[in-house]
């Protein structure tokens, strides 16, 4: 298919661009296969807007006489309006955008066409290999091993080819356990707590069914992570009733009889369309400037968004608490183990592991606990809050995770190497990107699409020094402690950087942020200068003494 066929009007002049809190700009609009490009004709202050078609969530058109207006709502929640003279041009452009922003085939997406303008210093596709992770692990414990049982994706289609499992469990046993777990997602190591040697594992629900099937290998596998005489905790992200109902469909939960050393805790985390609805309601509330106070607060409440944030943080704190304070191993799962499970395990690591609060460590966490662990990004992030096509599998699961990290970040602003901007950048790229990183639903699909060969990795770009410096938190001071956030409603806030980003004037806030950074930079310069001078002075004194001798 040629993109040119889809673009009947590739260019329109005298188009006026409207954005909230900006003056309207007149300019030329161009459509390419992957971008909508707007450039103002003003020589003095040429302005360009490049918008990926894949970033467009929905488009509306209306006409007043022959003047057409297109309202474009983006996945990053921005809304822009284009006034296009000429009914035909406007209709053509609108229909092109509609088609180009909803291409079915992954291989037509921009990452397959994107040619980077920068030199690749490090190929991001191989920056975070589980083997490296395992090397670190084996320097502190020898209770675990790498297993290639899933090399051909035959044991579990949504798992990566390599996983870390208890050393005492062989591949044969893993195959049996996989048959006992939903989607073949047998328990694997998610995090090892060096401080006390406790482990956090994740999996999917066991397939106990109504007649209480059991699997000796499964019991053996998870028991092998327990110290003798100690107990562990299974954190089930479904309420008990849902877990019980799941038995009718072949699913289920670990029964006390067969797992006597494990205590099950049901900590409900909302999922799928409920989250998507919540997301849509929140964005609606934030986009309506006319709400009076009561209406705004009740809309905010009705969205339930902050409730989800609180529940999620609470569950993560609980998991972290079991590991760090109780000295117990933990197994986390819900039904499929691809959504709420990953939210809990990755947030618990943010709380527990200082390494995950560095830029590199956080990237590794996203790769390990989200991409490799098989969170179906392509399904979940296909549409954002403005889309009319409400599919069942769309859900802002990853965005919720990022927001929880942001909430913790706000409470511990010096403990993270990255800034809020880094989290926002990840949100944007998860929904629309020139990079191939978030394409596909699991490693299996990515391998089939040959993403590492055909597309550029987000990490190749982010980890270049000039990009990294944009995301570095000037206040960062490595903090080796466990950081426990407060989850009181009074301590939680709306993530303004995402939800109010386009809805309020940000000039003064940005200037203040600049001033903040300049104080910090100046402080560092001064300290360096003082140290140099002191050294110089000391050296001089010695020289003088030597000369005097």
């Amino acid at each position, binding site marked *: 298919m040629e993109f040119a066929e889809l673009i009947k009007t590739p260019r329109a002049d005298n188009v006026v661009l409207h954005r909230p809190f900006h003056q309207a700009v007149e300019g030329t609009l161009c459509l390419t296969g992957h971008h909508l490009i707007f450039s103002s004709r003003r020589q003095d202050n040429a302005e360009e807007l490049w918008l990926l078609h894949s970033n467009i969530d929905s488009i509306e058109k209306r006409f007043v006489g022959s003047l057409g207006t297109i309202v474009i709502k983006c996945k990053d929640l921005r809304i822009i309006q284009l006034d296009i003279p000429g009914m035909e041009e406007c209709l053509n452009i609108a229909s092109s955008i509609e088609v180009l922003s909803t291409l079915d085939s992954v291989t037509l997406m921009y990452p397959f066409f994107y040619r980077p303008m920068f030199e690749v210093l490090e190929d991001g596709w191989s920056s975070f290999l589980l083997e490296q992770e395992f090397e670190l692990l084996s320097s502190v414990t020898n209770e675990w091993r790498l297993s290639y049982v899933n090399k051909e994706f035959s044991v579990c289609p949504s798992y990566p080819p390599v996983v870390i499992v208890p050393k005492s469990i062989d591949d044969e046993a893993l195959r049996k356990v996989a048959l006992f777990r939903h989607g073949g997602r047998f328990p694997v190591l998610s995090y090892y707590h060096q401080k006390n040697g406790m482990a956090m594992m994740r999996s999917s629900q066991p397939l106990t069914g109504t007649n209480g099937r059991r699997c000796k290998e499964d019991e053996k596998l998870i028991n092998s992570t327990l110290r003798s005489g100690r107990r562990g905790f299974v954190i089930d992200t479904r309420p008990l009733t849902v877990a019980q109902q799941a038995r009718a469909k072949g699913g289920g939960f670990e029964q006390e009889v067969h797992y006597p050393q494990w*205590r099950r*805790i*049901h900590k409900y985390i909302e999922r799928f369309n409920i989250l998507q609805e919540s997301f849509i309601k929140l964005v609606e509330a934030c986009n309506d400037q006319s*709400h*009076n*106070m*009561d209406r*705004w*607060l009740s809309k*905010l409440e009705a969205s*339930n968004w*902050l*409730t989800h944030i*609180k529940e999620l943080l*609470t569950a993560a704190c*609980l998991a972290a*608490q079991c590991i760090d*304070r109780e000295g117990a191993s933990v197994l986390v799962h819900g039904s499929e183990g691809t959504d709420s499970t990953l939210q809990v395990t990755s947030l618990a690591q943010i709380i527990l592991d200082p390494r995950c609060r560095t830029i590199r460590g956080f990237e590794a966490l996203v790769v390990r606990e989200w991409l490799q662990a098989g969170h179906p990004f392509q399904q979940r992030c296909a549409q954002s809050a403005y889309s009319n096509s409400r599919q069942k599998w769309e859900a802002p699961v990853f965005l919720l995770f990022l927001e929880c990290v942001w909430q913790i970040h706000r*409470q511990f*602003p*010096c403990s993270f190497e990255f800034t809020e901007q880094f989290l926002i950048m990840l949100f944007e790229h998860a929904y629309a990107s020139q990079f191939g990183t978030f394409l596909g639903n699991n490693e299996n699909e990515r391998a089939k699409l040959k993403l590492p060969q055909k597309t550029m990795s987000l990490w190749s770009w982010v980890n270049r020094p000039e990009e990294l410096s944009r995301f570095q938190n000037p*206040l960062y001071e490595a903090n080796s402690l*466990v*950081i*426990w*956030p*407060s*989850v*009181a*409603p*009074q*301590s939680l806030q709306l993530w303004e950087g995402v939800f109010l980003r386009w*809805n*309020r004037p940000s000039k*003064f*806030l940005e*200037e*203040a942020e600049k*001033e903040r950074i300049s*104080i910090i930079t100046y*402080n560092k310069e*001064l300290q360096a*200068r*003082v*140290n140099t*001078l*002191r*050294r*110089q*002075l*000391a*050296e*001089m*004194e*010695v*020289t*003088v003494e*030597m*000369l*005097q001798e």
Partner: protein
Amino acid sequence: QVEQVKLLDRFSTSNKSLTGTLYLTATHLLFIDSSQRETWILHHHIAAVEKLPLTTSGCPLVIQCKNFRIVHFIVPRERDCHDIYNSLLQLSRTAKFEELYAFSYNPKQNESEQVKGWQLIDLAEEYKRMGVPNDYWQLSDANRDYKICETYPRELYVPRTASKPIIVGSSKFRSKGRFPVLSYYHKNKEAAICRCSQPLSGFSARCLEDEHMLQAISKANPSNCYMYVVDTRPKLNAMANRAAGKGYENEDNYSNIRFQFVGIENIHVMRSSLQKLLEVSGTRGLSVNDFLSGLENSGWLRHIKAVLDAAVFLAKAIAVESASVLVHCSDGWDRTSQVCSLGALLLDSYYRTVKGFMVLIEKDWISFGHKFSDRCCHLDGDPKEISPVFTQFLESVWNLTEQFPQAFEFNEAFLLQIHEHVHSCQFGNFLGNCQKEREELKLKEKTYSLWPFLLAEQKKYQNPLYNPDSSPELTLLEPNTVSFNFKFWRNMYHQFDRSMHPRQSMFNLIMNMSEQNKQLEEDIKELEAKIKQRNRRSDVVLVKEQEQTGHPAPVALKSPPCFQKEQPPMPVNDAVRTIEGSNTADNRYSELVSEFSKAEPAIVSLEYGVARMTC
């Protein structure tokens, strides 16, 4: 003194507590826990004491403070508890002004310092700064002996064309004699903010002098032919007042006025709104939705928005239309003070400085007779007079500081400290309900002024980001009052609930850094001077050396081996970098530990970051 008293954690679900000794002094309640940490509570800060039913561990005593601190003690013996309860009731309810702390507080200042302290804020100076008196405005001596209006100050500025008979006539037509006077004058626009109380218009009464008075105000502004009259009450309330012979201006009777209601609720609504807010925020195990719906039902943020919206209206009338504005409510000392002072704050960057903010409070609140003693319940009095009107003013200012982080010289701590002392009765400034009362109490001789003490510790209240010149638009603040900009002021209502705040404060960090930068600049100067000096000396030595040896000495300063080691870097202020609440003992999560081992848990639930096991 009572020993073995337990201080409970307010939001803890398990009964975690600190054990210590409780002392009652003449002015304070003091609790010292086993690790010698002290909690001081001023008796005047106590809003309510409550004795709860006896429990197995003792008799619970809950003390609520006006600065929103709530402490929960458990006293082992009921008799002790009863004694403390009675003492606190007596101590916290003062009947006479002379018994307030301010009259006994002695900060070790001599008399001339005391006098100078009171002279720090000079309102005559402030009117001069605004540009009055001038061709249009003059100082009136009509109220010099408080004969026309008891609750106004002696010095009042009125239009030059307003003769004494007009003033007297107008004052008789205004509730409590509070006739229209100047509150703020905008030099560039030649427009004024004036204030008064409601007219005694009833259904049809009119007063020619009052009509003249308004015309005089309108004429005193050469750049505009009309003026606004802003009634800050909801229309319904104003209409109801007509039945009592009061009411609002009839546009037909006054020439060239544009009349406007802005709908801020009265003191009673505000009081119960705050009450509801505190009930919600004080709930244990609060869910997000209960919090948000509680916030909504309390109406608190709606009221804050209404106050700020009114101030924006004022600022726009003056800045955009160059129109003068006359503001009133019922008596003109609550809502009128809020709106006039906030309007001036938006218009004039001087009021956003530390000193200017003090001036603003002295002018629009203290001198114009906001009834601080009644509203803050300094003396045991009518509970219906209590209202958080001034707190709302501070909260509105805080909201502005959030939107304009660089426009204010002071920081949040300054606002909180002022709030603290409005209720503390430690200084004389806020005692009494009007200037006349303050003079009768001889406050300037018998008590001290708060402002010099705040100025002395100004460093603590400095906003490190303050940059009034950063953008010229900042002279006039145009806040965005869309609802989502208003936030719950956690640092005010949970100031003493440490676990709710960020464990690392970005703000303190920046503040300390900015402070440290000044010190470092000094250090650098000093070091450079020393190096210069040394250079000169070593030159001398070098010359000598050269003379002696005839060899040129190595001029390049190569480090001798013993100095190749890095000098230890400048110690960073350690206090800045520590993480509050991240040590295990300090964190509520630790409660889980003991409970886990106690019983076999069936369900673990987490509330407020506190894990609780129910068996």
